[in-house]
């Protein structure tokens, strides 16, 4: 395993050090592994907190700042953070108007955020949670843990963050976040496996001529393993899987094509060209697009596509100023 780390045991602490060193505008609570805005909380603003296992950077700490999250809790690599971390974050950023937890749908995240909400409410803080479960690669069923939460999380954080910044109340921000979550869909493809620092070898074997369609962001196996193929055919599979799952017609769409960590930008643009062409062919209007590393899976090569069926309000909030380490405009 070749990584720019000091040791598997310290990778998270080391990365938080780097975040603190690079971004003086952020506050890093090393004991609780919470990254929050350095500026004083704005009284009366709904606070947004997200978090999850590490290894998906810039998610979530890269999205802390004006117009997006108030705090992010970093778990160990691919492991949900704990309720104490979430509670510490809650106490740090609560500004009296309640707190929204943005939770990716993994059992660990769900349970830990649930415990945190119970603890926070016992301490008199009003908490609501929005669950993101947008991965179309997974069958949706009430008999299972449901779908994984992936790329739509970034869009929820941005749009709900802008709404909170405008001064909307917890119910309104929660309702909007839920609407975004319900209208976003994602699907990923892996060309290689990720290697967890603590494991030291790839989580799964993927032969030189095969790819994993519908992979999760923790190296969870996908829908199927298929022979390596041109970007246009991969794009076709991603696009059609998403479009057959939700109606994206007649509305402005926000598209995000995220790298998984080990794939360079030139390839992301190469496949995005095909994605855009396919969407256009099917009469779908991409109103806003993001191409880059936004939700990753350590050093995995591959990408994920996220589409959000947006509306004018979401677009306006999307365009609102944001100033975070990984997403910045208008501010």
């Amino acid at each position, binding site marked *: 395993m070749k990584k720019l780390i000091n040791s598997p045991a310290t990778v998270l602490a080391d990365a938080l050090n780097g975040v603190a060193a690079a971004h003086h505008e952020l506050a890093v609570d090393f004991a609780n592994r919470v990254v929050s805005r350095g500026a004083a909380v704005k009284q009366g603003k709904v606070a947004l907190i997200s978090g999850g296992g590490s290894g998906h950077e810039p998610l979530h700490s890269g999205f802390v700042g004006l117009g997006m999250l108030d705090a992010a809790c970093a778990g160990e690599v691919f492991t949900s953070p704990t309720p104490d971390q979430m509670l510490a974050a809650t106490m740090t950023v609560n500004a009296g108007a309640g707190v929204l937890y943005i939770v990716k749908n993994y059992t660990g995240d769900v349970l830990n955020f649930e415990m945190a909400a119970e603890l926070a409410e016992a301490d008199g803080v009003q908490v609501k949670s929005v669950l993101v479960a947008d991965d179309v690669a997974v069958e949706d069923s009430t008999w299972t843990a449901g779908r994984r939460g992936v790329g739509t999380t970034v869009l929820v954080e941005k749009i709900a963050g802008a709404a909170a910044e405008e001064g909307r109340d917890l119910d309104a921000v929660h309702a909007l976040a839920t609407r975004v979550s319900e209208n976003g869909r994602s699907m990923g493809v892996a060309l290689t496996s990720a290697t967890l620092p603590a494991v030291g070898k790839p989580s799964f074997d993927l032969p030189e001529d095969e790819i994993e369609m519908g992979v999760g962001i*923790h190296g*969870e196996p996908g829908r199927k393993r298929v022979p390596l193929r041109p970007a246009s055919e991969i794009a076709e599979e991603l696009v059609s899987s998403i479009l057959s799952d939700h109606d994206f017609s007649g509305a402005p769409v926000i598209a995000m094509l995220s790298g998984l960590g080990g794939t360079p930008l030139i390839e992301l643009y190469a496949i995005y060209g095909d994605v855009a062409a396919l969407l256009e062919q099917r009469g779908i209007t991409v109103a806003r697009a993001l191409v880059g590393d936004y939700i990753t899976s350590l050093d995995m090569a591959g990408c994920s596509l996220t589409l959000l069926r947006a509306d004018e309000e979401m677009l306006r909030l999307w365009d609102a100023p944001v100033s975070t380490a990984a997403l910045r405009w208008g501010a």
Partner: protein
Amino acid sequence: MLTLEDSRLTVDDLIAWLVRFDEQIVEHAERLTELDSAIGDADHGTNMARGTAAVRLRLTEARPDDAGAVLKSCGMTLVSTVGGASGSLYGTLFLEMAKRVGAASELDTTVFADAFRAGVAGVVARGRAEPGDKTMIDALQPTVDALSTAAAGGVPLTKSLQAAAAAAAAGRDATIPLVARRGRASYLGDRSADHLDPGATSAALLVQSLADSHAERVR
């Protein structure tokens, strides 16, 4: 080594259990992670080892005064160090047990069986898994049943715990053919079959650790 009475678990017995559990987790961490890499995200061994080491450290730094305090300290520590699904679930197991035993300084078979049942009920309430969903519940529920049967039959504690460990192991092995319906393995659908569940495996270690540590102490 003292020869202790084989009818109750003292504070030291509980601590010995959790120390043994840590040893077992350390010994099997790589295997647990391997199991998790097949149907999960390759962190179960690392998660558990981080947690049990913290539990052990905490309990040996300052010995709690009663059984409830041991279990609560363990539960809180697991919740705040393990993370993932298993952290909140194992944490809940111990926190619910602690609630049930309160400030008792010793637990007899019946009280322990009852507390364990409450703990597992807490895990079910939190995780919403049923037996057969291919989770730790598949090892924990048989443990509850074995403990209750033993308590009702007046079986000595050592034997009760051995029966519980055997039941947990059988429950663990029974997860192999199952299709996961909870937790990360459920994303795999049918492909989750033919694999041992990592959480059921660590749960069997938990029960075996108690049976073994207790057997050693009363020997």
